[in-house]
């Protein structure tokens, strides 16, 4: 192979991905950026006027939904992690020949579409449901209490819907751990607990970081759960973008709000990765390059 060709090969390999990224990310991003700086109404037509006020106005108007989105997404991510880690651990180390069946069980509900699953929860949690009756009977819910149209329902929906995105990365990084390392720790008189904290957990961090990102990012922008399981007092930023775009037909504000959401998520992710360490996300390779 000639050197020229050798040099070109990586670009050819990147080609399909780059084309995809440009067509479906860069180009739409450009349009959205342009739209976010337009002013006017549907009736009079929109005009490009460098309307930066769209950004400041929309943030002032919707700060409550922003805060709520990030709180809900954060709480949902933590709960999902607390559920997913032991689950992934059990499957990876204790699953034995049932491993594949257990993984399938984690993924199986997701053969049904997202929307149908969320709507199903409205029936399960409805005011006259068995769950609500039981919670009332044991005193966890007051007589007038309900589950549907509360923050609990919305966060539970987020946890449920994004759980596999947490379980699978954690599982795959736990699965890759060489058990001889844990045995070595024990040979060196580490208790099971110390071995877990010093060996297993650090080695599974790439999975944890990937899992939390894959849960947090879509959860922060989600509007389906808040729409079906919440009321207006639980509306998230995604609900606002949706209604601005489809109901009010205020495209510039909707675009500006989407940009602010992207920037906010990016900021959270950058801080988080700094804190967690890039090597945690990329594993050994990240460490070597750093």
């Amino acid at each position: 192979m000639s050197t020229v060709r050798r040099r070109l090969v990586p670009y050819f390999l990147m080609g399909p991905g780059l084309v995809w990224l440009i067509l479906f990310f860069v180009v739409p991003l450009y349009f959205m950026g342009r739209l976010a700086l337009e002013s006017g109404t549907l009736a009079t037509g929109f005009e490009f006027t460098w309307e930066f006020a769209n950004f400041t106005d929309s943030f002032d108007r919707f700060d409550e939904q922003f805060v709520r989105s990030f709180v809900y997404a954060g709480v949902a991510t933590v709960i999902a992690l607390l559920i997913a880690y032991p689950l992934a651990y059990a499957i990876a180390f204790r699953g034995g020949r049932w491993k594949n069946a257990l993984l399938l069980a984690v993924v199986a509900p997701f053969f049904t579409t997202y929307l149908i699953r969320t709507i199903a929860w409205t029936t399960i949690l409805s005011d006259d449901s068995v769950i609500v009756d039981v919670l009332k009977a044991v005193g966890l819910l007051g007589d007038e209490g309900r589950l549907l149209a509360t923050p609990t329902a919305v966060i539970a929906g987020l946890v449920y819907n994004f759980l596999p995105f947490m379980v699978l990365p954690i599982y795959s990084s736990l699965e890759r751990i060489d058990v001889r390392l844990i045995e070595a720790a024990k040979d060196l008189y580490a208790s099971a607990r110390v071995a877990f904290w010093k060996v297993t957990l650090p080695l599974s961090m790439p999975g944890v970081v990937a899992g939390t990102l894959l849960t947090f990012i879509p959860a922060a922008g989600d509007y389906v759960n808040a729409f079906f399981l919440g009321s207006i007092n639980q509306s998230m930023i995604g609900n606002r973008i949706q209604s601005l775009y489809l109901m009010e037909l205020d495209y510039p504000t909707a675009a500006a709000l989407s940009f602010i959401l992207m920037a906010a998520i990016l900021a959270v992710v950058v801080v988080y990765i700094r804190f967690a360490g890039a090597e945690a996300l990329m594993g050994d390779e990240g460490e070597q390059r750093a």
Partner: protein
Amino acid sequence: MTEREAGPMKGFKKLLFGVAMLIAALVVAACGSEGGIEGGKDEGEVPVAKAEGEPSGTVKIANWPFYIDRKTVPEFERETGIKVQYVEEVNDNNDFLAKVQPQLQRGESGGRDIMIVTDWMANRMRELGYLQDFDEEAIAPAKANLVPQLASPAFDPERKFSLPWQSGMTGLVVNKAKAPDVTSINDLFDPKYKGRVEMLNEMRDTVPLVMMADGVRPEDATEEDWMNTIEKIREAAESGQIRKFTGNDYTRDLANGDAVAVIGWSGDAVQLQADNPDIQFVMPDEGCTLWSDNMVIPVGAPNPTAAYAWMNYVYDPENQAQIADYNYYFTPVKGTKEVLERMGSDAAKSELVFPTEEYTANCSTQDEPPGGPEVVRKVEQAWQDVITGA
């Protein structure tokens, strides 16, 4: 390819490649931007959708779901030889406008010959220059059968560009077993029903009704009346009195028992009743709002001739009876009641399909907030803030 390539050449190439890609992206973007989102009305004459010769070919109709029985379309096809492409793509007026607006702006209808939209949206589309007037001669048979109550709405007094598909009433839909004493819109604000009442997210359905309950007639309402009513609804929503703002999905909440009394549509109540006899449409003490979903012909409609054939067909009472018997909305076609009686259908006896003048005496036709597009936009924004909790 295990070892990494090093040296300045690589960095330069990478840069070159990046720049090339960026330029390509901008070129693509610039070419595309001509078709960007722009509104604005064309001044001048409204075009007339002329009928030419014998109707033939295909007619494409965009309607709301659950609005037609299964037999009407195939029977029309057999009788006229026109092929029908019947698409249930309208779920919400604003949503639908957002979807078709880029095409209509270019003077294309996306192949649609007839679209069905609510009164105020028909008005707005006309103002945006997206609709054609009817060919009076071609549509005369249908218009002759239009019931007088619907013949001259404020937005189109001569029915020049809109013809009702079905009409309906917005009022109370109540589970009589759980909320037997709800008869007025004001009862929805009763703390007894806290968290178990719902209202429609269509502003023009909900706000006028609440306004009427406060003694303001929507016909005389000022911008301030609209704003005050919206504020009242906001307080009720934030306190948790109103559980949700819904579209058609209130039917699920009523059936589940999550809601006991809602603002809803007459036709839905009948369909819900089939499953649960306790659920009924209640004419509010203050009256109801009346509306129509109208057939309109968009600019660029490829086959208006066939569109008129369809309109005339569904305005024949014999054919209309079949549709009315299915959807139980207020039928706009004269003589339908007689046909339904002959068929022995219960629809003939329903006050919802054939409301008497006394039954609808206090009802008002749906209207926009007064004061032109700027005010409408302001009021609409305030409303959206309420129903999405901003």
